[in-house]
């Protein structure tokens, strides 16, 4: 009887245990052609051998702040179906919009401490702007996979808890014309290190600094 109980418990724990054992981690280090680390690079991994697991409710929440008349973060990846909140931390009003193909929306004139949100249910690139402050810009990459991340100043981004197998690794930055794509195979229980060298275009954003003879608005 006791043996039977133990066997039953083992049967329940086995999948969880095997998941823990077989989970892989990928660490991407990205540099430009001059060897400088790439900050704010978005990467995502799409499984090639099995469908991506369905999202959990916690995955479908993200925030893009408006603070000091800038969007924060500048780049972000979210899963398809994510509700993205746009809290305004400034004393001035903002008017958030996107004219992108995956999501066309406007969040009209909201003031300080007001939070508005949009559900992004189509994968693709969604550039966000403010109709009042032309220099404000953010990029939301909507992906259909739970495995994504954004690099820090050291150019490194890590994604954990991936089942072993083959993946398409995609990397995108606002200074790239199109995403860099490559197939990688992740091994069980290992840290898989991937080094990417990308050619970035010059940073061509609308200048915010004031000019002589007028305010920057």
């Amino acid at each position, binding site marked *: 009887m006791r043996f039977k109980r133990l066997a039953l418990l083992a049967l329940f724990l086995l999948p969880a245990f095997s998941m823990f054992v077989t989970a892989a981690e990928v660490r991407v280090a990205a540099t430009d052609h001059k060897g400088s680390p790439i900050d704010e690079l978005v990467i995502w991994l799409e499984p090639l051998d099995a469908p991506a697991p369905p999202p959990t409710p916690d995955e479908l929440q993200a925030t893009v702040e408006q603070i000091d008349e800038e969007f924060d973060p500048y780049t972000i990846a979210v899963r398809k179906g994510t509700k993205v909140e746009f809290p305004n931390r400034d004393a001035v009003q903002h008017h958030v919009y996107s004219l992108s193909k995956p999501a066309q929306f406007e969040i009209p004139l909201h003031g300080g401490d007001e939070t508005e949100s949009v559900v992004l249910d189509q994968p693709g690139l969604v550039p966000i702007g403010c109709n009042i402050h*032309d220099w404000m810009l953010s990029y939301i990459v909507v992906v259909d996979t739970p495995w994504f991340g954004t690099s820090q100043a050291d150019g490194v981004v890590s994604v954990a808890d991936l089942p072993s197998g083959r993946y398409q690794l995609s990397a995108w930055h606002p200074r790239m014309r199109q995403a860099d794509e490559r197939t990688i195979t992740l091994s069980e229980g290992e840290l898989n290190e991937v080094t990417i060298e990308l050619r970035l275009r010059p*940073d061509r954003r609308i200048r915010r600094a004031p000019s*002589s003879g007028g305010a920057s608005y």
Partner: protein
Amino acid sequence: MRGLQNVRWLSALAALGLTPVVAQTWKPQVDVGYVYNNNVSNSIREEQTDGAVTARVEFSQVRVLTRDWQATMTFGADTAAWLEYSGLNLSHLDAAVGLRRKFGLGPYATKLDVRLQGLHQIADVSEWSGNGYHAEISLQKRFTPLLSASLTGDLRRFDAERYVYSGTVGAVTSAVVYDITADWRLRGSLRYAEGTQLSWCRESFPEFSGKGPQWRDGIFGGDWFPYQDEGHLRGINVSFGRAIGASSAVSLGYDASESRAGGHVYRNQIFSLNYIHAF
């Protein structure tokens, strides 16, 4: 004495800008610089040259009315202290209201700005003090994140305590702004103006000495007198600016103009260096 009064006015205004209450709702901006003018007397001969230290502080507030309409209020003060000819020192207190219409969404939508400014001028030569207004309409278009252009029409009217300093000038200016890099900006503009122009001349110049009653303001010496004429002006301006972070910039400007009035040609070149900081 009047110069001291100007400094007090400006100090009071600057102090106001430092109070947190004002800073919360108004956006202050300061602009300090140096300007050199190779014909500060605006003469056709015996041109006088001088340089000035300039300063301007302004507080502006943008009110977003709808998606496409914005209103702007600006209060400002500026002063110029000329190194050699202190009689040219002018200070202004001004207030302006503006209305912006944006034709569409995003940074590439065309913008139409209308602005009306009233100003009070305080001059070292008290007869040059007075009141004026400046009305401006401007069409702006951005073509890429780096390139934008504008076409501006403006009308200036100034009424001084003495008539010779008064006048009306209408102008059209077309400008192109190109950001060479993320930090460096090149701006070029062409200007055509018509209206009153103020010049100074020596008594010994017979062609002008017979022009009406002469009043000597003493700015350039005992035998110089101001006079005005109607004419037109063509000018070109080029400036290089460098951003210092998101809130500051320095710019180096060159302005050349040629005006024709009463059959005479007046030429003027101005070099300027400015530092601008938006709080």
